[in-house]
């Protein structure tokens, strides 16, 4: 017992070696800004590139292959499809059936006609949407938001900006949880949240109110708690650690951005499909 006690005591001093614990794969371990740059460049390039081949190659090269390398392919597919599906389906159907320049008839359902031109355009839109949702999801699955905030702070970005962004992202699950709790509480008090749409609509009000008011009160309390911990102090904070970065990664980031710039300029000049 005594020996064990001493062991634990000994480890309770100094900067813990597990701070900013490196991620499980080489891709996870890339600097967060590199991953953020890659996600942004992929998403913007997918929009800028015309046609089907360009965006499809982007999905394979900048989303699927890194996802395999990072060991998150399964989760990436599930999440990014969930994220993209509602927009993808509606965009696909609208373009398939209502593409203005469509002449080659593929299928007719009553008065509406699916055309080959519509299908081609719908596939192009689909590829772009999948590239965007894939790029965003890959970043999300391989990067802790707080790491990006720390990294940006080290580069001189005000921690307040990253802080607000990060806190908003974190606030969503908390709000959902509160809504669930309040729903359960109101239901226990006999509130109807099931049944006809009208009854349900009426049932939502007593839930939305407390969720919004609760969030405002919580934001106020959070602000106070932050100020009480000197978050409002001007000047730089002391950082305990910062994500690993290399000169090579810096070069890669600039190359990615330069490549994107060339692509956008070329597209604006009318190059490509």
């Amino acid at each position, binding site marked *: 017992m005594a020996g064990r006690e001493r062991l*634990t005591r000994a480890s*309770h*001093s*100094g*900067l*813990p070696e*597990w*701070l900013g614990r490196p991620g499980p794969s080489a891709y996870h371990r890339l600097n967060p800004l590199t991953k953020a740059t890659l996600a942004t460049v992929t998403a913007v390039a997918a929009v800028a590139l015309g046609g089907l081949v360009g965006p499809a190659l982007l999905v394979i090269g900048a989303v699927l292959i890194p996802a395999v390398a990072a060991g998150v392919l399964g989760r990436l597919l599930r999440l990014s499809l969930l994220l993209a599906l509602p927009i993808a389906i509606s965009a696909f159907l609208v373009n398939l059936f209502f593409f203005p320049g469509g002449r080659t008839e593929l299928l007719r359902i009553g008065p509406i006609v699916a055309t080959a031109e519509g299908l081609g355009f719908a596939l192009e839109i689909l590829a772009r949407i999948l590239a965007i949702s894939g790029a965003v999801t890959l970043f999300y699955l391989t990067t*802790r938001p*707080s790491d990006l*905030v720390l990294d940006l702070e080290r580069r001189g970005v005000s921690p307040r900006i*990253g*802080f607000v962004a*990060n*806190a908003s992202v*974190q606030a969503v699950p*908390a709000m959902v949880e509160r809504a669930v709790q309040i729903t359960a509480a109101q239901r226990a008090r006999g509130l109807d949240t099931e049944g006809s749409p009208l009854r349900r609509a009426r049932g939502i009000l007593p839930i939305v109110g407390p969720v919004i008011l609760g969030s405002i009160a*919580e934001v106020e*309390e*959070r*602000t*106070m*708690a*932050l*100020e*009480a*911990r*000197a*978050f*409002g*102090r*001007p*000047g*730089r*904070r*002391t*950082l*305990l650690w910062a994500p690993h970065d290399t000169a090579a990664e810096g070069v890669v980031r600039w190359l990615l951005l330069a490549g994107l710039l060339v692509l956008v300029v070329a597209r604006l000049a009318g190059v490509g499909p």
Partner: protein
Amino acid sequence: MSLALRGVGYRYPGVAVPALLDVDLHLGSGEVVGVTGASESGKTTLCLVVSGLAPRVVGGRIRGTITLDGESVDDWPMHRLAGRVGIGFQDPTSQLSQVAVTVFEEVAFGPMNLGVARDAIVERTWEALGTLRIEGLAERDPRRLSGGQQQLVAMAGLLAMRPAHLVLDEPTAQLDPAGTRLVAEAVERLAEGGASILITEQKTDLLASVADRVVVLRDGRFALDGPTDEVLADPRLIELGVREPAPLRLRRLAATAGVDPALLQPAADA
């Protein structure tokens, strides 16, 4: 090391009625002052005023004088006060910084903001975790802890800023009995360590065990103010909307029921 309020009054923004009136309070080194009172009596407001958040962050108007070691804090910005007076709130989750992914970083957040040197932050963080006996949680994600554990983490975060004075607003209000016990023990330990503490509670049992002095608020004024034993045994407590500690209540009920209080002595004091 002392914190003093003299003739302090405070109004929230847009409210004509003062939420705090004619408050005189002295918080000396190592002293624990308990504050209680009915709901809406002004306990939280007093905490905000003592910590300086009202009016600096909350807005509103303040009168009277607040001094730290004899120096007026009127012109002090919040971040300067924050290093001297720490404040903790009821809700454990809303006190977390939300950016820290480990308890260690959560506790280090305050000193990081103060710009303390890195080695000193590490030392303070371990010390604060040790004082609250939660070194074992250092590596955990603070957002995934129980409410009681989160409250201890929040208190450690205050301690790591090394404030001379601590203000705790109903730190056990949202905790179960186990969590309440953890916090109560921590408060006792902090007081033994020499911190001066202002703690508000509706649970007078807790105040009975930790406070040297107790103040009872009614409508923003001090209705009672004195040594813990005297105030908590005061017959006016009930009309002030405060429940007396359980042993006293038991004795009073026994007396009204005609039972000899002496019979209860061993059980009540156990």
